């Protein structure tokens, strides 16, 4: 039983929490751009945390259900409809055989998550279904393809449905301009003045932003150390290349690089950033590792208690 893809949309990718343990050979992790929305999607349906979901970027997607099931929508509001009836994200819905689930264009945020009771049933590659198009790995066929017209997204038929929704206080505010940035990652290679510029200026999301990294445009930041010996790049690292325009490295990042870094956005902060569209503005707010730890524990505790 499955969803049949009527319209594939701009970019829809199967994801789980990522392909880990292979960065030492240069293989990136992939995984959901908005991890918090992804985790809530599985929590709403009592799925395991790592259960496969569809990450829908921008929308323009249409699916036909070939069996009854229960679904959850989290993340962006992409004006989803079920048989032309509007759906609100961050809750579950019963789906019947023959129903048409459609996504139009973003109303709020950029990426929506569609989870289904029991998860989608695609084979994993190196332990994960996470789709990385650049590396031609993961997804429905294991070769890194985005969803295509005519694809069949398999799931297990399910008759029971529980109406559930995420508590309002736990739903992230995607309209926030402030993106938290952990200091401590080669921060010392920038002068006080450059740091002040970095945190006091707005940055615009560039058209060249994707799952690999978000390129920002704004006040150029000068590093006193133009290059460093190439080293492993953590999720969320904010690189400052020679032109001074920051690049935030996200899920499909390269594993090694040689530019100095201003800091690191957390997985939660990266999720907020990944809901921004090109042309939108952000500002970075400095936080400590301690604050980042607290924030994450709070989010995870909310999820666990709710489950």
């Amino acid at each position, binding site marked *: 039983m499955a969803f049949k893809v009527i319209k594939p949309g701009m970019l829809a990718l199967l994801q789980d929490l990522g392909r880990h343990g*292979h960065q*030492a*050979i*240069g293989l990136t992790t992939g995984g959901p751009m908005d991890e918090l929305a992804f985790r809530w999607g599985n929590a709403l349906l009592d799925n395991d945390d790592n259960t496969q979901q569809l990450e829908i970027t921008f929308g323009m997607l249409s699916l036909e259900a070939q069996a009854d099931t229960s679904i959850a929508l989290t993340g962006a509001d992409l004006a989803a409809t079920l048989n032309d009836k509007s759906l609100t994200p961050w809750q579950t819905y019963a789906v019947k055989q023959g129903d048409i689930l459609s996504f139009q264009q973003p109303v709020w945020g950029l990426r929506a998550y569609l989870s289904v009771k029991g998860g989608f049933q695609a084979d994993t590659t190196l332990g994960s279904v996470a789709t990385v198009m650049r590396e031609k790995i993961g997804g429905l066929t294991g070769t890194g393809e985005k969803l295509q017209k005519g694809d069949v997204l398999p799931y297990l038929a399910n008759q029971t449905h529980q109406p559930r929704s995420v508590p309002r206080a736990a739903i992230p505010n995607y309209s926030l301009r402030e993106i938290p940035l952990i200091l401590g990652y080669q921060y010392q290679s920038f002068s006080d003045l450059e740091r002040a510029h970095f945190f006091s200026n707005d940055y615009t999301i560039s058209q060249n932003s994707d799952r690999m990294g978000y390129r920002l445009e704004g006040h150029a930041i000068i590093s006193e150390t133009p290059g460093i*010996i190439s080293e*492993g790049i*953590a999720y969320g690292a904010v690189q400052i290349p020679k032109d001074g325009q920051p690049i935030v490295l996200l899920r499909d990042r390269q594993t090694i690089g040689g530019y100095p870094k201003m800091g690191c956005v957390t997985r939660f902060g990266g999720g907020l950033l990944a809901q921004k569209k090109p042309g939108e503005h952000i500002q970075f707010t400095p936080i400590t*590792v301690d604050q980042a730890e607290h924030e994450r524990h709070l989010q995870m505790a909310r999820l666990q208690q709710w489950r």
Partner: protein
Amino acid sequence: MIQAVLPPLPDIDMVSDNACLLTFSQTISEAVSDRIAHVSHQLTSLSGIIDLVPSYTTLLVIFDGDHYDRFAICKAIRDRIADPVPNTSQQTDVREIVIPVYYGTEVGPDLDDVAAHCGMSSNEVIKQHSSNLYRAYAIGFTPGFAFLGNTPAALHIGRKTTPRLKVPIGSVAIAENQTAVYPSVTPGGWQIIGRTPIQLIDWGSDNLALIAMGDKVRFEPISRQDFLAQGGKLDGF
């Protein structure tokens, strides 16, 4: 009193709430690389470690934030790597990998430029490049891409001013004191001098990547005929 010479402990810096960077040195050397390979191996079996990214002078450690807080991870790493490095392990582990290369302008469009820059003939470039034994200092950038060093000083040349948008699979290239083979089609700014017919990444194999960190790599010139016989392709530019 005879004191055992312990290798210096790396600096540990927090990068985020689930990653820290171990810095072993500010300069690249075989000894530092040995040490990183050894520590990486030691940490592989530490519970709560999600990923390890060794490079020239550093090791990035990704850990499970539910398993460790920022203090516990530093302690766990220090405890695990406090043991002295067994001085025999490196020699026995080293593998030598031979990569056949068809050198020439047909597949190495920068060969003539490199020769002109270095003030030698193309044949001399090939001879210099293939007579050296290289070490794999890091694997990354793309899957299976091995950063190999060090090229002979006579071959040092900078990256291209404008990187190519597409470098064909198997391209053998040099830049400054490094050399590498491109395992997949990617953009790239290194100077391309030849091409290998062999695959550097194989998703179906157990190792996945042909070259591992710490391996020794040698390039062996082959003829155009041998290149084609081994499945080499001439297209891609």
